């Protein structure tokens, strides 16, 4: 073999081996597998021990884990003592800037893709599809949503309504869902605000500068 042949062979080997960052469908090669894959169940892994092959188990029907009894109708279902949709936040939650900030943050993650950041039902997911979704997402500024109690926003967000599925599995903490309901109310109140409301607010803020802005009290209406 001449020198030319040998260098060509070396070059071909390198070319076959490829470079850093080349895409490949075959899994990474790890020569030393010692304890890389241990026989223990990790989240969302497969496990032959169970018939359905899932490590993560569904609790048996009719059982409740300690500390997870959802017996507070107000907090978990948005219903008050009289069995009506609650008009206020559940006990232990206060309407403050922190709650609304949390609500805005969560709303923009979970609701805005369809309902839009301003709540007009014009989210990017909806607009991306030609002609929009089969059923338009609710515009929170429509007449029919104006007088809804806070508990209604919570209940629909948690359990779904019509074609919208419930979000209690994605937003696991009910307090986050209440925060979102409060933020939707903020969107509604702020979009329906009139000049007189603003003047009233300014006057009140002047009288009592330490209190939160009245527009945010709309959530307790």
């Amino acid at each position, binding site marked *: 073999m001449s020198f030319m042949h040998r260098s060509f062979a070396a070059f071909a080997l390198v070319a076959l081996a490829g470079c*850093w960052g080349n895409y490949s469908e075959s899994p990474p090669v790890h020569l030393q597998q010692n304890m890389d894959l241990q026989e223990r169940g990790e989240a969302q892994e497969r496990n032959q021990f169970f018939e359905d092959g899932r490590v993560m188990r569904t609790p048996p029907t009719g059982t409740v884990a300690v500390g997870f009894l959802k017996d507070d109708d107000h907090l978990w279902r948005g219903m008050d003592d009289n069995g009506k949709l609650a008009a206020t936040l559940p006990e232990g939650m206060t309407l403050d800037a922190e709650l609304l900030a949390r609500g805005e943050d969560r709303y923009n993650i979970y609701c805005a893709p369809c309902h839009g950041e301003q709540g007009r039902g014009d989210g990017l997911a909806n607009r*991306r599809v030609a002609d929009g979704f089969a059923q338009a997402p609710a515009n929170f500024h429509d007449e029919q949503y104006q007088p809804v109690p806070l508990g209604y926003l919570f209940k629909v967000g948690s359990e779904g309504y019509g074609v919208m599925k419930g979000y209690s599995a994605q937003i696991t903490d009910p307090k986050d869902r209440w925060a979102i309901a409060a933020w939707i109310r903020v969107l509604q109140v702020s979009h329906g605000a009139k000049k007189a409301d603003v003047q009233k607010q300014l006057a009140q803020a002047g009288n009592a500068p330490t209190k939160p802005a009245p527009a945010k009290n709309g959530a307790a209406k």
Partner: protein
Amino acid sequence: MPAIFPRWTNTLPVVLGLIAPILGAGAIFTVWYWFSPQYTDVGYQPAQPVPYSHKLHAGEMGMDCRYCHNTVEYAAVAAIPPTQTCMNCHDGLVRTTNPGGPYEGRIANLKKSWETGEAVEWVRVHMLPDYAYFNHSPHVAAGVGCASCHGRVDQMVVVSQDQPLSMGWCLDCHRNPKPNLRPLDQVTNMNWDTDAENYDPDRDPERKRKVNPPVHCSGCHR
């Protein structure tokens, strides 16, 4: 007197002086380059049972990472979403203008999973060895961006591994986390440009405590 060294030993200086160093350097380069996780791990891009495009969902539609990977802020694992999360939109809400076209083929496995209750068998891309106990939540809480470890997922049609995820790579950041920190509300922002923003975590009033990642063994190997 016969020669002590045979004639071929005349080539020894050349072999030892020139060829051996070249071969040695070649062996070192081969191990350094082709045994590195940069080569063995980066770029792993398995075919998935559903051709889900992060570029479309996270990029073009700007959906937040946490819409699907919702546990990332409070759990060790950033959950792969259940079929129900997909079905929030794909159970009839998303219409196709072209019935029987490619869209329906793409979501066929999703529909099957929804109807039978069997899981969609997504292929895991980022695999840490089981003796490294990684937890997403403190990293998110410290303001390490998703893109710092996972790359620009919003530009990936098929997800691939972007970083080596090797121990040396982990320690690089644990020893000097500052270049990879960003404001706490920008963690999921794929467009955040660390170089352009000139962000100093020490002067961020939103941060309640200093980031102090462990560099001792049991920090990760418990």
